[in-house]
C-alpha cells in the first residue's frame, strides 16, 4: 500500500512528515487517522499492536519524542514534525537492543502481542532510571496489560537489561 491516505479524498487530508525510527516518512492523511493506524497501515510497520478500544491496554505503545504514548489515542497529525520510535527501531543494524535480548533470555514474552509496547516503555524507564526496583518497574508498566506472563518475567527482563546497560556505559 502506498504511503498515502486511506480511503480519503482532498480536502480532508493534510500532509505530515514524521521521523519514524530515524527516517523521515511523509504522507497525506486524514486528521482522524490514529497514529497506530498510520504506523500499521500507511507505513506497514505492524509491530505496533492494537488490543482494545478504550485506551486501556497499552499494546499500541510507542515512543513519541522518547516518551511512551498510546498510539491509538494520538492522531497521526499530532506527530507531524516529531519523532516516533516503534519496536522496529530498537535494533542497531543486526544487533539486538539489550531490552530485546533480556526479554528473550528471561522468558518475558509468550504470545508476543504486548511485547513491543512493554519493551519500549522499559527503554524509556531505563533512560530515566538506570537501576529500577521491582516496584518501580511494575509502576512504570501499569498502563499496559499482559494476559500471558503474569508480569514477573517482564520485571526480570527489565532488571536484566538495566544491568547490561549499566555495564556498557
Amino acid at each position, binding site marked *: *500500500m502506498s504511503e498515502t491516505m486511506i480511503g480519503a479524498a482532498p480536502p480532508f487530508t493534510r500532509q505530515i512528515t514524521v521521523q519514524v525510527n530515524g527516517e523521515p516518512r511523509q504522507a497525506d492523511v486524514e486528521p482522524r487517522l490514529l497514529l497506530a493506524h498510520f504506523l500499521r497501515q500507511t507505513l506497514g510497520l505492524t509491530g505496533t499492536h492494537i488490543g482494545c478500544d478504550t485506551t486501556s491496554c497499552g499494546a499500541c505503545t510507542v515512543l513519541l519524542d522518547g516518551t511512551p504514548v498510546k498510539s491509538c489515542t494520538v492522531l497521526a497529525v499530532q506527530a507531524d514534525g516529531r519523532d516516533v520510535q516503534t*519496536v522496529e527501531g530498537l535494533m542497531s543494524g543486526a544487533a539486538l537492543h539489550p531490552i530485546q535480548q533480556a526479554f528473550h533470555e528471561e522468558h518475558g514474552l509468550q504470545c508476543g502481542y504486548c511485547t513491543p509496547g512493554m519493551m519500549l516503555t522499559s527503554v524509556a524507564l531505563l533512560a530515566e532510571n538506570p537501576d529500577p526496583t521491582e516496584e518501580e518497574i511494575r509502576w512504570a508498566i501499569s498502563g499496559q496489560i499482559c494476559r500471558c506472563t503474569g508480569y514477573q*518475567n517482564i520485571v526480570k527482563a527489565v532488571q536484566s537489561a538495566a544491568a547490561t546497560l549499566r555495564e556498557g556505559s
Partner: protein
Amino acid sequence: MASPTVRGLGHSVERKEDARFIRGKGNYVDDVVLPGMLHMEILRSPYAHARIVSIDTAAASALPGVVAVVTGELMAAHNLAWMPTLSGDTQAVLATDKVRYQGQEVAAVIAEDPYIAKDALELIEVDYEPLQAVTGPQQALAEGAPLIRDEKEGQTDNHVYHWEAGDKAATEKAFAEADKIVSLDTFYPRCHPSPLECCGCVADVNPATGQATIYMTSQAPHAHRTLFAIVAGLPEEKIRIISPDIGGGFGNKVPIYPGYVVATAASLLLGHPVKWIEDRTGNLISTGFARDYHMHGELAIKDGKFSGLRVKMLSDQGAFYADAQPTKFRAGLFHIVTGSYDIPAAWVETDGAYTNKAPGGVAYRCSFRVTEASYLIERLVQTAAYELGVDPAQLRMDNFIKPEQFPYTSATGFEYDSGDYQTAMDLCLEKLGYKELRAEQAKARDEGRLIGIGVASFTEVVGAGPSKTYDIAGLKMFDSAELRIHPTGKGVLKLGVKSQGQGHETTFAQIVAEELGIPPEDIEVQEGDTDNTPYGLGTYASRSTPTAGAATSVVARKLRAKAQTIAAHLLECSEDDLEWTAPRFSVKGAPDRGVSIQDCVFAAYTNMPDGLEHGFEGVTYYDPPNMTFPFGTYAVVVEIDRGTGQWKPLRVVAVDDCGVRINPMIVEGQIMGGLTEGYAIAAMELIDFDEDGNCIGSNFMDYLIPTAWETPHFELGETVTPSPHHPIGAKGVGESATVGSPAAYVNAIVDALAHAGVRNLEMPVTPDKVWAALSEVGLAQ
C-alpha cells in the same frame, strides 16, 4: 536421557519463536495484507431481545468507498443465515427474525478501508421491536418466561439439556449415613478469556480456482476447516486455514464466530479478500465467554472422612448452545469434582438454560469446566474445615488419595494416572512457613489486623482424549506429529496442534531432541497451516503435550528404530550389538565404534541397506489411552483493610506437578500466567447484565484486567510424578493455575474472617463485598 549438549527434556531452552516477536515481526492475522483486500465491520444489536421489523441499508450502500452491505436476508439466500454449533445447536450468523443478545451480529459492511466501513455502519437503519429480556437461568426456566429460541422446531421452553454423572443411589446412601453434611451455594461468575489480540480473519476466496484461503485466529485449524466445509459447502480440499501467530487464545479462539462466516461469504461473492478484525467491545460482548455456573454442593462426612459428594448445577448457556466440549459431556469434565480426595460416592447433575446473552461457557483455561469443579470442591472442603473445627490444610491431607491407590478410579469414573498429593502439599506448606504464619495470624488478630491464609489442593484432568470416550462434533480427539529429517541432519516437525504463546516451537523440538538426539535448534516446528500439517484437534484444554507431544515422541522413536537399522548397516554389525546414547549409536563394548544420528540420516538418502525405504520421515496419529491428571497445592496469604474492604495478597506460593517438565522455564511461565488469571477472576473480572440485558463488562473500563501493579509476586515450586501411560511421562500444565488458584485466593479472604463466622464471599471478591461482610460481623472500620 539425552546428553546435555543435545538439550532435550528438562532443559530451560530459550525460545526459538522469540526471534520474530522481539523484533516486532510476528505475523498476526491483522498483519496480513493481500492485494485488493477489503475491510469488514459488523453492526451489532443494541438490544438483548428484540424482533427485527426492518433493515434499511440504502444510505450505507451509497457511501463512497462501500463495496457491499450484507444482512441476514442475503445470507439466508445462500443458506448461511444460520450455522451449526460445536454442541449440536444452531447459531445465527446474521440475525433475521430476532436478535437474542446485546451485541449480536445484525449486518456487515465491506468497504475499502475500516474507517469508511465504520462510517457506513452508522447509516444502516434497523427498526427493532424490543422484547422482554431473560437475564439468568432461573428466570429462563421459570413459568411464563419469554421463549428465546422460538425459531427452533420442538423448542417449547428455555431448557437446553439435563446431564448426570456418578452413582446416585450410592451417594444418597452415603448422605443418609453421614455424621455431618456441609453445603455451599456458590456462583462462578461470567468472565471472559480476553486474549490481548481480538478475533479476526482474512478470507480470500479465489473465484478462478475456487481455492479458499482463510487466515484465522484459530486454536484448531483442521477442525475449523472441516466445519467450514460443512457449513459453507465448500470442498474441503479447496479450503486452506492458516492460523499464523496468535496473540493469546485461552479458549477464545476455538469457536467459529459469525464474522468468519460472513467474511468468507463476502469474499466468495465479491471476489476480493475480505479482512474482518473485531474490536475489543465485539470480543467481550459476543465471543465465547466462560463459566456463568450456579453450583450447589454438599459434602457428606463420616468419622472425619469425606464419604459422599453431590452437586447440582445450573448453567447459563446464552442464546445459543455453542460450547466447545466433548460431545458426551454436557458439563464438560466437571465430574472431576471429587478432586484430590478419596470420596467413595459422588453424584452430579446439571441443567443448561438459554438466556439473552452471548453464547459460550467453556473457555478461559477451564480444561472443560474443571475450573468450576475445582473451585467448588476446594471451597466446600474449606467450609467443612471451619464447620468441623479442623485446620484446612490438615482436613485436606486426611482425605487425600494416597500414592499407593494409583491408578485410582474416582466415584465418577475417571482413572487418575498418577499422583502424590501429600508431597506437593508438604512442599507448599514448607515454602510458606505455614505454622509460623498461623501464629502470626493469631497475633495480628489480637492487634486488630486481619490476615488470612488460603490453601487449595487441586487435581485436574487434561489431554482429551481417548477415542472411545471423547469427540468434538464427532471428530475424535487424537492428535498428530509428522517428522521429516533432511540429508544434512536438520528437519521439520509438523503438528496438529496450534500454539498461542505456549512455546511449542521450542518444547516440541525438545521432545525430538530427547528421542532422536538432534538439537532443538535443528528442528523447525510448524503448526497452523492445514495444507502443511497433519490433522489434529488443536490446542486448548491443556491437550497438546498429552496428545501431540506423545505423537511426537512416538514418531521420533519410530525414526530412531529406523536409524538403528541404518547404523547397523553402516557399522556392519547386528542391530542387537548397538547401544544408543543420544546423539549416537555405538557398538556395545567398543564405544569408539559408532555413528551419529546425523550419519544415519544422511545414509537414509545416500547409502541405504537393501529392502529399506529411502527417506527419513514418519507421521503418527496418537490416540491417548487415558487422560493425564496434573495436580498441586497453592497457598495465598492476604491482609484486609478494615476501612475499605480492600485485600492484598502478601504471598502466593504455588507447587505444581505436571509430571515430566519438558522446559521448566516455559512451565513456570504458564503457571505464573494462570496464577494471574486466577487472581483476576477472584478479584475483579466480571461480565454482568442489567435487567434489560444490557451488558456491563464489554470494554476494558468495565471488564477489569489487573496490571503489573495489582498482580502479586509468585513463589513457585514443583514435584514430579510422571504419567505412567505418556511416552515421556508428561502431563498438560497450561491451565493448572487458572483451575486451581481462584479457590486459594478466596479461601484466604474467607480465612481472614472465618473466626467471626464468615463462610463465603462470591467472586469477584471486590472491596465493597468484603466490607459488607466485615460490617455484618462487626469487624468493619
